[in-house]
């Protein structure tokens, strides 16, 4: 196969990819990880990852502040000791709730990534 043919195939390959990307990107709802998504999805389940910037333990509850462009509040209700520290990178899944006019995530699963 000559190089010119190879490059023509490469060009067609990229163009086909671009056309497919154009159409499929219209069909994908962007699950944005920006904090303003909280206002739009109250009651919905979300997955979120980020670094713990602040953690406060209370009676059967742990309050976490997740580092994002604007900090995101995460609440963990648990009767067990939670082994989490500041600067841990975690993955959180939970539901968005509104509390005193502020949105927060009630976590049902937290996994420390690093």
């Amino acid at each position, binding site marked *: *196969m*000559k*190089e010119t043919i*190879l*490059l023509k*195939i*490469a*060009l*067609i*390959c*990229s*163009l*086909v*990819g*671009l056309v*497919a*990307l*154009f159409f*499929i*990107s219209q*069909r*994908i709802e*962007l*699950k*944005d*990880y*920006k904090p303003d998504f909280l206002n739009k999805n109250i009651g919905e389940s979300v*997955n979120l*990852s*980020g*670094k713990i910037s602040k953690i406060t333990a209370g009676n059967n509850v742990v309050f976490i502040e*997740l*580092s*994002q*462009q604007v900090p995101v509040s995460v609440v963990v209700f648990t009767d067990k000791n939670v082994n989490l520290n500041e600067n841990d*990178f975690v*993955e959180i899944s939970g539901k968005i709730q509104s509390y005193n006019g502020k949105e927060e995530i009630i976590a049902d699963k937290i996994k420390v*990534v*690093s």
Partner: protein
Amino acid sequence: MLVEIVVAIILGCLMGVITGLTPGLHINLVSLILLSISPVLLGYTNVLAVASFIISMSITHTFTDFISATYLGAPSDDTAMAVMPAHRLLLQGMGHEAIRLATIGSLLCLIATVAMSPILIFIVPIIFNSLKNYVGWLLLALVIFMILREQNLDKKFWAFGIVILSGILGIIVLSMPNLKDPLLPMLSGLFGVSVLLLSLAQKVKLPPQKVTEHVKVGMKDKIKSIGSGVFSGSLVSIFPGLGPAQAAVLASQIVGEINTFSYLIMVGGINTVSMILSLITLFTIEKARNGSIIVVQQLLKNIDMNTLILFLSVALIAGGIATFLTMYISRIFSKIMNKVNYSLLSIVIIIFVCFMVFYFSGFIGLLILAVATAIGLLPNIVNVSRSNSMACLLVPIILMSLL
């Protein structure tokens, strides 16, 4: 979103060129850095753009890493099996031809895999569930076959010795605690520095590198190479522990006698296919077999059909761009190689590899590099296949699977 993804693809392709050309700089490392800074990144862009960056970087890397493997003799675990045939062509003034063949393999295997993805989505879970318990036995049979295929009893004995030595080296290196990047010193020694030392000892003079198109591979051989590239690349993605290098050994045993040119097409395709298949396995069996795709999984959790199609589109675009970049950079390398003293270049590369090994793996890395280089010299001295040295990865996986 579209514009952000397209920008991410272009940046990813450029990063893939950097990782492909720099021995020791792996896409997994860049992906992990991206994951660690993702909270900041996601404040400025969306998660699909970050994932698209990683995918386009990974795809481009599978194209461009053949340039450093061919011209610099510095292999990664993805290109270890391609170094020898590519280096042989380099010594005939056909370095650019070697890159062209590997690029043909990468691009055509990419297109074939994307085209076959509707079928693969259905058969990957079936194959995975049927064969996942037999990987160890499969690889053991492969090692035995590698030894037995040597021509006479004397060579079989030496092949066995090299398998044992490489295997022990692999077990020791891969079980070392706190050793960063264990594959870099081991594979650089077995397949890189040893080859360069032999070139130096034999006072190899690099002939003028020509940008030619003399090599022609027949349609039948091309289909055979692409088919085996897709097949073995799929194995890498489906089976835990099986890497591109082992798959190349397996594929070369399955397809039987193929010439160097067809072999380069096949090896060129394996890495690209394994990257695409990793996306498909992420969708079908929720498992990613590739470091950079694992990072995509960390970012997105599981992907739906639309996201898979988006990623396959990203891969197609990146593959096309990577083809242009690889051929362009290879031409530049060909010109540079004509101007430099090859012996001096070999010494510079050996020093550079030593520096990279020291930087990533410390003094212990240098020790591994020295031992691996010594073992890497053996196949040439006793005139057996260098692929026997891949036992450094095969033996630990066999033991891990069977014990």
